[in-house]
């Protein structure tokens, strides 16, 4: 095979550690090659069910952390919430079992270009549920650049928070909220976020979590003059850009809205570019002004 620009690998990943963390399972796979290429915000696609599987499609998970080398060669960690057949299979894997892993996939969180660390922008990192998984690594990279980093973690209840302890180490300030008040502020992220942005004078808000939260974060950031960078989670059949199932309406720099693939052009988008008006009740429609919408009306 001719030499290709290898920016992605497909490997059989051996599970070497699996531990319960609240409502989630934290898994470590040996996956040589991925760690070297990955950056915060990238995701991996795992095949599920083994050789007899009726489940053809891969499942995507944000990379929680990577270790480029070590006793086992490079490793990749993911944090998985068991919600269906695929995630149940993945969380049920036992050490030394393997599954195929493709990664790193997608576009990572853009990091601010910092010439003088003194000018580094303050950032707020917002994670909903397991959405916090990729943020600790991101926090590290940002602080390396000199950014002040605050984290806001929210979930329905304490067991659905991920990484509260890590957050205290990774960030300069941490705010927790739960719907039921079982830990931290009782209520929604949207209630605490404005305070955190104001207090830290944040210029960038990074967020990962459910769509509703991302929209809310985008609106709050905008109201405070900050840029929102949000990592979305659309149902993906391939994860590598070939199926066109994961699209969503996003405005380009030219102001035009296009149905773009969230697996290759995302999963991280600038929040203010996402056409949140098109989402409702689990459906996303094509905005009338989107490129090619007229072509659809023809037939």
């Amino acid at each position, binding site marked *: 095979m001719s030499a290709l620009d290898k920016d992605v690998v497909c490997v059989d990943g051996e599970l070497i550690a699996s531990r319960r963390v609240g409502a989630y399972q934290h898994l470590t796979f040996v996956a040589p090659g991925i760690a070297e290429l990955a950056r915060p915000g990238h995701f991996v696609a795992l095949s599920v069910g083994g050789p007899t599987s009726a489940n053809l499609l891969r499942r995507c998970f944000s990379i929680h952390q990577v270790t480029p080398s070590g006793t086992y060669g490079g490793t990749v960690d993911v944090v998985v919430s068991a919600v269906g057949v695929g995630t149940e299979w993945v969380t049920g894997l036992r050490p030394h079992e393997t599954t195929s892993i493709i990664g790193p996939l997608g576009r990572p969180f853009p990091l601010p270009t910092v010439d003088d660390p003194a000018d580094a922008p303050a950032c707020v990192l917002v994670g909903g549920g397991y959405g916090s998984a990729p943020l600790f690594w991101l926090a590290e990279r940002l602080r390396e650049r000199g950014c002040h980093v605050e984290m806001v973690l929210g979930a329905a209840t304490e067991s659905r928070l991920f990484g509260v302890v890590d957050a205290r180490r990774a960030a300069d300030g941490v705010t927790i909220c739960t719907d039921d008040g079982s830990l931290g502020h009782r209520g929604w992220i949207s209630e605490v976020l404005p305070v955190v942005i104001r207090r830290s004078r944040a210029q960038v808000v990074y967020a990962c979590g459910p769509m509703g939260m991302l929209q809310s974060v985008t609106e709050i950031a905008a109201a405070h003059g900050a840029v929102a960078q949000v990592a979305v989670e659309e149902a993906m059949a391939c994860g590598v850009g070939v*199926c066109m199932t994961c699209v969503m309406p996003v405005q380009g720099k030219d102001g035009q809205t296009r149905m773009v693939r969230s697996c290759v052009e995302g999963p991280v988008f600038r929040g203010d570019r996402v056409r949140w008006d098109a989402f409702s009740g689990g459906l996303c429609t094509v905005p009338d002004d989107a490129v090619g919408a007229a072509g659809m009306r023809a037939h």
Partner: protein
Amino acid sequence: MSHAVSMPDTAPAPPSDQAAAVDLRVDIGPSGAPQILPNPLMTASGCAANGPELHRFFDVTELGAFVTKSVMREPRSGRGTPRMAETPSGMLNSIGLQGPGIDAFVSTDLRWLAEHDARVLVSIAGGSATEFAEVAATLAESRDFDHVVVGVEVNISCPNVANRGQVFACDPQASAKVMTLVRESLPRDTPIIAKLSPDVTNIADIAAACLKAGASGLTMINTTLGMVIDLDRMRPQVAGITGGLSGPAVRPMAVRAIWQVTSAMREGRMPTVPIIGVGGVRTGRDALELIVAGATAVQVGTVTFNDPLAPVRVRDELAAELADRGFGSVSDAVGAAHPR
């Protein structure tokens, strides 16, 4: 009379040099105008985007041909989401032919494929026979047509605006009309491959109508119409309500369609032309199954979503399967399961 007491020993894979000796070349051209491909493996339209995405995993020149996503005249946004559902050993999709339109396709997508020396089977679609013809004409006039396009696959599984949205491929007349006009828009020796839908009472009738009207080959099968319901929201799972079912689940339907049409050819009920098999191919064994049913070439669709390297992996597995069974070439295996 006596019998050996022996369990068949599961034979190990043959040495790869035996597989390497298998002649993988196939001819998908019309009679009198050979169009030789170095191997029978292709991507399937809509399952491989238009090149760069899979080129991250393997060189697109490794393929017999790269089949592009069906392109129409205008840019299309495709449908809203959700656009897919996983189903047992398959999936349902309802993309709505999202694409850049034929002009941008030839200037950008086909250009990229040309720059990367791909052999391209361009899939075209339309809402009317005229639209198909216009798309074909624009393609034929494009600068890269002559050196990269190995054929045109005509996706007639799209709704016919003039006939209450019934898909062309469900009606022999409508299918024939598309073929006639596309034929007129393309150079004489360009392979024109009609891609058929399995959702018909008699697929051989549609095949015969297409061939009579100018198609020089057939691709079978497109997705079969299916539906999944979202039981939490109590509504169809995909925004398009129904969708196309694909993947290994439907492979027996593809084998059957290829077999039926090949049988009709062998019985002289229609001319014998190259068939490109597609539907649920996951392994070299699966590719061989379509080939011995009558296919000359094989496309890998949905399985690419599971394994982006699948088209090339299947090619190599196919070579090994052929060698295993003593076939010296792909051509020797085409239709080999039919009675001699």
